């Protein structure tokens, strides 16, 4: 379940190049290459399907000539892909077909993902902070906490969101029936954006599908490793405070852990936005897939892959900037 950690470890084992700038360039190059590959994968997925994708569209036949020209169905796969990349680099990801007909995909994708960042980043930070706080408390001591965290955190994200909503709704309903409180604004989840739903979404994403477990177990392991290392022994033998040494050494492994979670969080985002009726890239992705809006769905998917790859890149960069051992002086 921690592929990202293993990949990053492998990358770190490879021989580092001499200066920091070249190292950053190398990582950025890998990022671009992976993104290209992801885009190709998504394209192949669509065009390699046995049936004719246009047939599946609700008004496919009417649009057939237009679509065939726009999607270049007469060209071979490689040429089609190159054309797609060429246009994408100029910012043209096609036009939405069914969800918002006529609107450029790029606009929709960027707007939606910016909104969703307001969910993704707080969830990652909340999860990391909670995991670290719990780990700081119990790392190294035999504690039931890790088991408890796992039992709670293992529930799928949608189930978490569902139970939270049902729980709150039923409790509020019971209180209303009993005449204890008046009807609150957010009751029965109306369609307007609400901080309650956002908060529930963040909670569900931060805890669910094992996110908290992975971060907690990872933080505990790193903390134990650092606390039992020689230089902390040294600090204790000198009688100094250990925290100024422990915390900076935690930054790099925590960055790697956090970056590894982003892929899962994006998946959780897609679910939780739909379940809690929030308006972001996840909900848009559902609409696009349900209504078979190929360009929009592909644009959103490629953006998702870009975000995951970017998170890994940022994680690598944090490691490089914090750890002098990874930067060789020329």
């Amino acid at each position, binding site marked *: 379940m921690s592929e990202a950690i293993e990949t990053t470890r492998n990358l770190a084992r490879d021989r580092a190049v001499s200066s920091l700038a070249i190292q950053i360039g190398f990582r950025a190059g890998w990022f671009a290459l992976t993104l290209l590959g992801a885009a190709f994968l998504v394209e192949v997925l*669509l065009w390699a399907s046995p049936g004719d994708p246009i047939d599946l569209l609700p008004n496919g036949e009417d649009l057939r000539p237009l679509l065939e020209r726009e999607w270049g169905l007469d060209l071979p796969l490689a040429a089609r892909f190159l054309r797609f990349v060429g246009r994408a680099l100029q910012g043209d990801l096609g036009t939405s077909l069914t969800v918002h007909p006529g609107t450029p995909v790029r606009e929709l994708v960027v707007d939606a993902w910016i909104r969703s960042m307001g969910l993704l980043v707080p969830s990652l930070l909340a999860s990391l902070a909670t995991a670290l706080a719990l780990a700081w408390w119990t790392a190294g001591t035999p504690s039931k906490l890790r088991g408890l965290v796992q039992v709670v955190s293992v529930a799928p994200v949608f189930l978490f969101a569902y139970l939270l909503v049902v729980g709150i709704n039923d409790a509020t309903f019971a209180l209303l029936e009993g005449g204890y409180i008046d009807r609150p604004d957010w009751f029965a989840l109306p369609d307007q954006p609400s901080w309650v739903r956002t908060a529930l979404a963040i909670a569900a994403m931060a805890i669910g599908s094992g996110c908290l477990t992975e971060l907690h177990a990872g933080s505990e392991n790193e903390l134990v490793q650092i606390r039992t290392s020689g230089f902390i022994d040294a600090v204790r033998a000198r009688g100094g405070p250990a925290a100024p040494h422990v915390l900076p050494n935690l930054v790099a492994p925590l960055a790697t852990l956090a970056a590894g979670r982003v892929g899962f969080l994006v998946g959780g985002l897609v679910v939780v936005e739909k379940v809690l009726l929030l308006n972001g890239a996840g909900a848009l992705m559902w609409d696009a897939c349900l209504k078979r809006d190929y360009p929009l769905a592909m644009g959103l998917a490629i953006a998702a892959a870009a975000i995951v790859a970017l998170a890994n890149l940022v994680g690598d960069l944090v490691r490089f900037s914090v750890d002098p051992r990874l930067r060789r002086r020329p």
Partner: protein
Amino acid sequence: MSRRPESVFLGAIPPALVLCAWGVSVLTDYDVVADVDPSRAGLGPSPALPFGTDHMGRDVFWRTVTASEAFVGPALVACAVALAIAVPLGALAGYSGGTTARAVRYLFDVVASVPRFVLVLLACMIYGSDPLVLATAAGASYAPGLGQAVYARLEALRGAEFVLAARAHGLSDARILGRHLLWVNCRRLVGRHLLYLFGFFLILETTLSYIGGFGIEEPQPSWGNMLAFEFGQHGMNPLATLVPAAAIWLTVLGTVIVADALAEPGDV
């Protein structure tokens, strides 16, 4: 979770029950349409109806049992798909090393960079949402994780003494790889990842069925759509909500506990 035998035993119970339910469901006939009986809507548990009824009068117990068909079969297919893709590729990379390994790792990284749920959604959009598509997409999205793990294990073992000794004895590469490396050294690793995949597939199927559109449609039961169905029905029969929720939670938990027990020291 501790790897005490008691916890593992307890953890194995829900998945075992699920498999039994699957067997029972496959062998028996539950008529999804005929079960509707509004006169007995929202009843609590009784000897005849162990979990009561939902708000359309359907037997919650039988729906829970039958819902296992929604994911067990396809989950096994997904495992087969992941196995078929990841193990040969991971083995190839781990055993040959060099450019082949780098190419395979690039392939894995590319597929892994697309979040699994997104990949599955795309596949459903393009190929329709029948269980086979779901299984293949889930298996393919899980393959990079499994492949990377196999690759890492084999790479660590590549220079190991017993490999050199086996070569010196004249054993063919295929036999070394197949028997000694993969079967003896990797089977726990592979088993563990496949268990995680099983749990992931359950989550996937129930999520899709809950949200609707893709996944299992009414009146066929799935724990996901049972939850969706009872949403908003205040307090008629709480078991109609709690039972599917508990079934999902406990099965995933059990699967993860058993899978964790297969972890070896030094595993990621």
